[in-house]
């Protein structure tokens, strides 16, 4: 159903975002897998994760030709744009990636997620804004369901984050670019 590749810098919350998609899929009894790149990455280095949500058992957990690509930085945009399948979707943070796509057989979605986060007192939560935007545009999950699912994944000692996560998601859901 969906092969998703999330790519960006370490520290942007790429792995977290991928995990939320997988958790939401798992709670709907779908087959899901999550595979991070685990090279010598560190904060500031490149980082990506393969996320698969399927109706049948998953073969390769590695996404090499994504249906949905999140390019959260310019190097990822350059590296993975050509790998998106025909008819696929490419999401990018237009406040970090000053580029426009050139392929005519895929759809591009631009959202200034980092700017929106900063403007709304949600610095560091551009990933959740982006998640909201991706969920809305792909129709992967019902918006209300995804909100609940994200909330359910927040551990008790981080309960104070529930409200800001919700706010960030809603910004993503509501963005029309």
């Amino acid at each position, binding site marked *: 159903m969906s092969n998703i590749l999330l790519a960006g810098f370490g520290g942007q919350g790429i792995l977290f975002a991928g*995990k939320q998609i*997988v*958790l939401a899929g*798992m709670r709907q009894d779908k087959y*899901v*897998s*999550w*595979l*991070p790149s*685990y*090279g*010598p990455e560190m904060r500031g280095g490149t980082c990506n994760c393969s996320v698969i949500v399927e109706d049948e*058992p*998953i*073969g*390769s*957990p*590695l996404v*090499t030709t994504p249906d949905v690509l999140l390019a959260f930085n310019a190097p990822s945009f350059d590296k993975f744009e050509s790998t998106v399948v025909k008819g696929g979707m490419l999401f990018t943070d237009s406040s970090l990636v000053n580029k426009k796509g050139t392929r005519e057989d895929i759809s591009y979605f631009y959202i200034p997620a980092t700017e929106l986060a900063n403007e709304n007192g949600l610095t560091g939560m551009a990933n959740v804004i982006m998640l909201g935007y991706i969920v809305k545009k792909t129709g992967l999950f019902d918006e209300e369901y995804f909100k609940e699912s994200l909330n359910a994944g927040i551990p008790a000692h981080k309960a104070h984050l529930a409200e800001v996560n919700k706010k960030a998601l809603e910004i993503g859901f509501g963005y029309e670019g």
Partner: protein
Amino acid sequence: MGEKMLMKGNEVIGEAAIRSGCRYFFGYPITPQTELSEYLAKKMPKVGGLCLQAESEVSAINMVLGCTASGERAFTSSSSPGISLKSEGVSYIIGSDLPCVIVNVQRGGPGLGGIQPAQSDYLQATKALGHGDQHFIVLAPAYVQEIATLMGEAFDLADIYRTPVMLLADGALGQMMEPVDFESKKERVLPEKTWAACGHGNKREHNIVNSLYISPEVLEQTVLDRYERYKMIEENEVQYDEYMTEDAEICIVAYGITARIAKTAVKAAREKGIKAGLFRPITLWPYPKKELAALADKVSKFLVVEMNMGQMVDDVKVATDCRRPVEFFGRTGGVIPTPNEILAKIEEMNGGAK
């Protein structure tokens, strides 16, 4: 069915070990299996267990030897280069007839190699990790769920046959997250550990755990006795899985992460009208020889797919008495094959893409 949890393969190894009643882990960190130590460092103290980071792999495996000699369940884990370091200790454990579990989350080799997933320790694991006449059970999970199931099995098999059991995974399985349910373990009757060197209040003769037998006749007999047990293992503990083999003409043989990738290729081949199937050994030792031999009566060609240079090819040839051609496709060094690459090979064997 219990509640499904989303966990990394490496964490599942640790959780399944705890749920199997294992309370002792001795290890030394190495990518890509370090999350296991991290998980156990947090969890073992909470269940009254011990997670000890040894000063080296050599030390860790010998701690396992000492711990299991006392009758406790213990295990160690590493990735390829670290497993080579443990080889001497594993041979001593075999020579002492001690049960233990060894986890290898493989990475590319030889040497320090790389840190990406590989299956290039197949021969080391299935033929001779250490010196001496020996075997041990090798289990190859393909899914995170299967790690949970097989890790539980591993401790039981080790106790029943007094042998090391290796869980042979790879970096992708260790790093990836999938839903897992821990409730599906098979119940087995376990023998009492009458051989354990543990406190007994002077109620019996003391037990000695040892792998040194100076008399050749005595040593020969201990080896022969051990091979009787190996025979029982070969008769009773073979595990495998088949997919669309009933009418298959081209049968892939693959294990672990590669098997699930091959499965996608088999589906794609079927959509193109090619009669492909998949045979997946779950136990790499004992090897499912009889089952493969039976398949050789039905299929016209075998294709071995691995993340190495073809280490399992000879096992398939031997099991089938070379009655059918055995071809190979693999990637190595940490490269994961794609379903399309495997499909292309199937098409080539089928007489080219149509």
